[in-house]
């Protein structure tokens, strides 16, 4: 960058800072409108069951009750948010029809004059449920005879004809055969809630000319608008989504969960409708980061070069897909780690179980791959008898290396970053490592 920059690169004061330190900035649910209704959800109390009946008779008597919304009111009740980029099948139910697949699944939306009245009405809805066996472990869910979670097939997402996202590069079996050491590890994680300080929520407002304004704290306005348009079968130009301040997202606000039903409520009542998650809903019902089980098997030479890496990963998607199939693809693109490895085999499964659906969270599919790979690297270092820095410098990827998904590496700077980290913590690297760069390797070594 030859030209000298004036603004980019400066730590200027944030343009929204005064609004934050005075609390004057308006967040979605800071707004309220005359005649605004409150939506509270009747949720499944069990993990997996047939839904045989819903009795609203007691709920309707509650003072302040206005109306209920069931699956029959939803124009396009079965959907999947990645349908916008061609992912299928449509498999999640805006409101349950005849089966519930996770504890907390939405069944009936109650609209009332006050939150207290809505909560009281929710407590008086009687559900006729016949419990079914549930499955919570990803590997059990893959066994024949396991309870089937999805309504369209077995318990894995199909990636263009395969039951997992695959990466095949080189020949891992040959690599293992040539290796001096075989190092294996199994790395597993639990679901994690994004837990933004502001819970997911929106307010839908009927406008004069048949349009609907929706104040929402989604992270993706058009993604939410387009999905709401499909679910409600309403042209997109009748929907006007407005964001503004978002009290933290971390991936927890890309599920298009509250906007469709709040807008449907506004349509059916011609009154503003507020649908905001309580903290316990955000904790227990909003989507989480997937739990992962990642098996790594490496073939390593005696001097510490990794010549084969086989990764088998299971992401626990919970009862529905949401964003998780995408996470598997991003996982597969990064599961081998920032290392130059000639033979790589990756199978990444998106598995369904009877728990809260999982979706996006900061690091989407890569965070837990980095956890597995970077603990595995220390395992390899120990086996080969070198220190953790050495094993990483020996295998670090460089510009021009062909990555397992066949895209040549560019903008790679792992080596320079590790060198800077060593200086920061006062770790004295050997001269050879200090001299290394991420510049492309000399051609005769080729893609290594």
């Amino acid at each position, binding site marked *: 960058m030859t030209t000298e920059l004036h603004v*980019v690169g400066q730590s200027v004061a944030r343009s929204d800072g005064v609004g934050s330190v005075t609390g004057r900035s308006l967040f979605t649910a800071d707004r309220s409108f005359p005649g605004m209704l409150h939506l509270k959800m009747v949720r499944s109390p069990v993990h997996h069951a047939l839904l045989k009946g819903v009795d609203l008779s007691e709920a309707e008597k509650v003072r302040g009750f206005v109306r209920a919304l069931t699956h029959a009111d939803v124009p396009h009740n079965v959907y999947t948010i990645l349908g916008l980029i061609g992912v299928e099948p449509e498999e999640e139910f805006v409101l349950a029809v005849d089966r519930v697949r996770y504890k907390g699944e939405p069944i009936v939306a109650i609209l009332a004059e006050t939150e207290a009245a809505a909560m009281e009405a929710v407590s008086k809805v009687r559900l006729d449920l016949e419990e079914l066996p549930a499955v919570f472990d990803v590997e059990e869910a893959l066994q024949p005879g396991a309870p089937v979670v999805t309504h369209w097939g077995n318990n894995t997402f199909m990636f263009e004809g395969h039951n997992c996202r695959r990466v095949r590069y080189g020949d891992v079996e040959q690599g293992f055969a040539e290796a001096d050491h075989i190092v294996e590890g199994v790395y597993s994680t639990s679901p994690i809630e994004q*837990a933004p300080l502001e819970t997911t929520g929106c307010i839908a407002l009927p406008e004069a000319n048949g349009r609907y304004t929706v104040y929402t704290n989604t992270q993706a306005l058009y993604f939410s608008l387009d999905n709401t348009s499909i679910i409600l079968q309403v042209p997109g130009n009748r929907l006007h989504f407005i964001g503004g301040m978002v*009290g933290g997202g971390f991936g927890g606000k890309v599920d298009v969960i509250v906007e469709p039903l709040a807008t449907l409520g506004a349509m059916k009542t011609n009154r503003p409708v507020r649908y905001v998650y309580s903290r316990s809903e955000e904790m227990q019902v909003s989507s989480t980061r997937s739990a992962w089980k990642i098996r790594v098997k490496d073939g390593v030479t005696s001097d510490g070069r990794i010549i084969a890496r086989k990764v088998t990963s299971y992401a626990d998607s919970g009862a529905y897909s949401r964003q998780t199939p*995408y996470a598997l693809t991003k996982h597969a693109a990064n599961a081998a780690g920032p290392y130059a490895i000639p033979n790589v085999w990756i199978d990444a499964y998106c598995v369904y179980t009877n728990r809260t659906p999982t979706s996006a969270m900061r690091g989407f599919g890569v965070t*837990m791959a980095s956890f597995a790979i970077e603990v595995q690297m220390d395992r390899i270092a120990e086996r080969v008898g070198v220190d953790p820095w050495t094993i990483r410098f020996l295998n670090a990827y460089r510009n021009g290396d062909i990555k397992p998904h066949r895209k040549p590496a560019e903008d790679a*700077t792992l080596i*320079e*970053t590790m060198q*800077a980290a060593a200086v920061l913590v006062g770790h004295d690297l050997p001269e050879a490592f200090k001299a290394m760069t991420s510049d492309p390797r000399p051609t005769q070594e080729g893609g290594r």
Partner: protein
Amino acid sequence: MARLRGTGMAAVNYPTGMNLGGDPSQALVHATTSGSFIVTLSATDLGQGLRTVIGQIAAETLGVAYEEVVIDTADTDTGPHDMGTFASRATHRVGNAVKAAALEARQAVLELAAEELEAAVEDLVTDGHGNVLVNGVPSRSLRIADLASRAQFQYGRTIAGRGSFMKPKSGVDPETGAMDPDSTEAHACTIAEVEVDTETGEVAVLSIRSAYEVGRQVNPALVRGQIVGGAWMGMSHALYETTEPYYPSRDHSPKDFAEYLMPGPREVPEIDCVVLEMPSSNGPYGVKGVGEMTANSPIPAIVNAIYHACGVRIDSLPVTPEAILRGLDALA
């Protein structure tokens, strides 16, 4: 009872942006009668400071002061399309779109200035302080603000620009996994220092120190905010938080901030970082992106530090004090 110390490291990279459906962002820029500029978007600011960094990129490209740019975003009636804020994509994608839109608006300013200064457009430059001048002849210069307002009433021209940036949709070969999944890569190397109480299994994180390489830093203070906030989140992922403490059992799921364990202000370690800037090949002013990756390297660095401290290597998260005690019992 012993308190054992250990250090551990991790080195990671992280991709900027998405690919499966195409990853587009658009922006509009226009000058107002007062001569300041409005940037219109639909991208959302989650608190990471998108408005500020996009304002800086627009001001830099237009050659005006940062205070002269207003960001109007998050409204689908006025803002052109944007995919959304995730995947460390916003600064890279929205930044590129805003830069393109600002360049178009800047060109309109230069053409107007060329007329007024009776000079060739090619000879004109902006000084970054709101002035257009003939290159090398500071005396022949005009205020961009004046030009922008005269454009409205005198010339009847719009000073505006449209910009868009898209990483084209690229699918995945189902057999081999061949794909073009991202635009550039940021990097981090983290060293964590921990102290393990061998009687209670408690892990105190003493320090998290990282080197990051994130391409051009548009606002270094905001980059540091992501690194410090991410180090805390990584520590929380590694040692504390889960919605299912006994996964895959669904029992005992927390329902409030008391039961959902996250480190508090008392537990936060010393967090230090150094940031390298190797400009990316395709980001605005060499931007890469940093927001999404900053919890990643601290997690394995902490797990590796625990092993170094007490010889217990735990391969499942979160690493609870119970898991460490059971590991120590097994070693004994």
